[in-house]
């Protein structure tokens, strides 16, 4: 089976004026399809940078990246956008829901970008809202929800298009322990159900217990 993510020698620098900040120093990483993998490391170790590269929202300077077997290294921004649209979901630390959209509209948005028939769209949204336990709150606006509920909307939004990969950068950092636990459990369960690979960045020890694999990142180097 092809790996969902196959990174070889990924190097990424940030340039701050004349200064050159190395953020990733030759990352090799294989994430099997359907796996639930966490990247752990101290602040500034490069977790977000790595996830941004994997999520195709940032570029890298050297190395190769195969996403589900497809070389995505040399693609232009439009091609990367279309791959994100089809294959990659995102869960953010601060939910990033669109405040003027209802729960349903937020979850439906990724499907509107694709060309899906309205009936199927509706069915998919209903299904995923049921799976995250928000069927009854579909008409609410994000500001009428708790943090945990919002993150569940975000999870539904990430999974509704049945992506290959879900990128979750510190998805529980804004949540209390109990809620964080529920959110992790939900991601894991739904990831398995939808066949999505999860790549999560965290420095939360409790989260990593549930992962198939935990990789430690220090100063841009994976252990």
């Amino acid at each position, binding site marked *: 089976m092809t790996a969902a993510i196959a990174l070889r020698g990924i190097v990424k620098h940030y340039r701050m004026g004349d200064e050159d900040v190395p953020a990733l120093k030759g990352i090799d990483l294989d994430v099997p399809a359907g796996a639930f993998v966490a990247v752990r490391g101290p602040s500034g170790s490069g977790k977000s940078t790595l996830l941004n590269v994997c999520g195709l929202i940032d570029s890298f300077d050297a190395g190769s990246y195969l996403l589900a077997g497809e070389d995505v290294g040399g693609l232009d921004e439009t091609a990367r956008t279309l791959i994100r*649209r089809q294959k990659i979901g995102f869960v*953010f630390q601060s939910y990033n829901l669109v405040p003027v959209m209802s729960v349903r509209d937020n979850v439906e948005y990724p499907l509107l*970008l694709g060309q899906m028939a309205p009936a199927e769209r509706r069915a998919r949204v209903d299904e995923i809202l049921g799976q995250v336990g928000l069927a009854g709150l579909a008409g609410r606006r994000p500001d009428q929800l708790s943090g945990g509920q919002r993150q569940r909307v975000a999870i539904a939004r990430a999974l509704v298009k049945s992506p290959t990969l879900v990128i979750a950068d510190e998805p529980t950092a804004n949540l209390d322990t109990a809620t964080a636990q529920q959110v992790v459990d939900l991601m894991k369960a739904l990831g398995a159900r939808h066949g999505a690979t999860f790549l999560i960045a965290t420095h939360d020890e409790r989260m990593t217990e549930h992962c198939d694999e935990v990789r430690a990142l220090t100063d841009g180097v994976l252990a």
Partner: protein
Amino acid sequence: MNAWLLAWRNVLRNRRRSLVTILIATVGCAAVLIASGFALYTYAALRDGAAKEFGNVTVGAPGYFDRDEETPMQFGMADYRALTARLMRDKRVRRVLPRVALSGLISNGDKSVIFMGLGADVAAEAEVRGPFLEIKEGSTRPIAGHEDLPRVLLGTDLAKSLDAHSGTGLTLLGTTTSGGINAIDVMVVGIVSTGWRDIDKRLVYTDVPTAQRLLMSDRISTLSIYLGSVDATPAAFAQLSAADPAHSYKPWWEQSFYYHSVRAIYNRIFGLLGLIIATLVFFSVANTLSMAVVERTREIGTLRALGALPQEIVAQFVREGALIGVVGAAAGTLLALFVVLALPHAGFEMPPPPGRSVGYPLLVNFSLPLYLAVDAGIVALCAVAAWFASRKASRRSIVEALAHV
């Protein structure tokens, strides 16, 4: 979710700011509509005035319109009666009025003044010219007991300068077609005003036979053809002039220098006004949406991460700009229509334009093509402003946008 509903909700996100922007679009739209409507009204009024003053079409002998006469009536028409009869057979022609242009001196015995006269069917002229030839004193009819004396009507300022009133006897002095000097005694029966001070200072109206007697000629200068409506002029002019190559035909718009100069000035003034308003609306909408774009930077980054293309982000803002434009244009149109309907009841007067002695009512015309064009223009302007405001942010680095607080 419907993209337009989403756009509307985004417009309402900052109500006060959007309201101010919509208000600017509203006022801008109304201002352009009212100003253009006023220009249209003015053009129509000038058009009517010119068509009444010169006749819809003027006929002269060949050369009359192109060259200056060296002696009076050098380019006069002798065959005008037959031509009049022929023209009157055309269904569209209401009246054909002869005119004799004359000039010379007019004297009350103590004082002589230069006059520019017109020998014409005075009663008919007063009728067709309506408010453009106002009889201020007396009438066109002879004064009882003096039916045998040739009659004249004087311009108001000329009458004042000669201290003449109806019943005053005066003498006209003019050059005849053969170069001699001729004089005839006339009686003032009325005092008229064209509203043009420069004309009223020199104007003498008399009948055709009197004018011909002064010039010692059996010719007239021109025939003025009056049609049922101004709009009928172009077609009638084309046909009449094509049918009669022996005479020279001129439509009113080639005669009225004033119409063209006012139009040129107004087009420039109102064009500039429109440009200023358009700039104002553009930058107001661009500014509002630029603020919205900055505030929604993280949202833009999120939607981009989820797979929206830059042009899809821009399209969303363009829809918001267009909605602001639609609401602004709709409100502006209502405001302008209200002004169009209310002004005739308000009875505002414009002061006399340069060179004129009378003002005119302040009115604003409605024109469907104008309204459609201005409304579409406002909406397009707002949409372009939104494009302008969002195109950069839509291509910005997603990671940076997501990190924006």
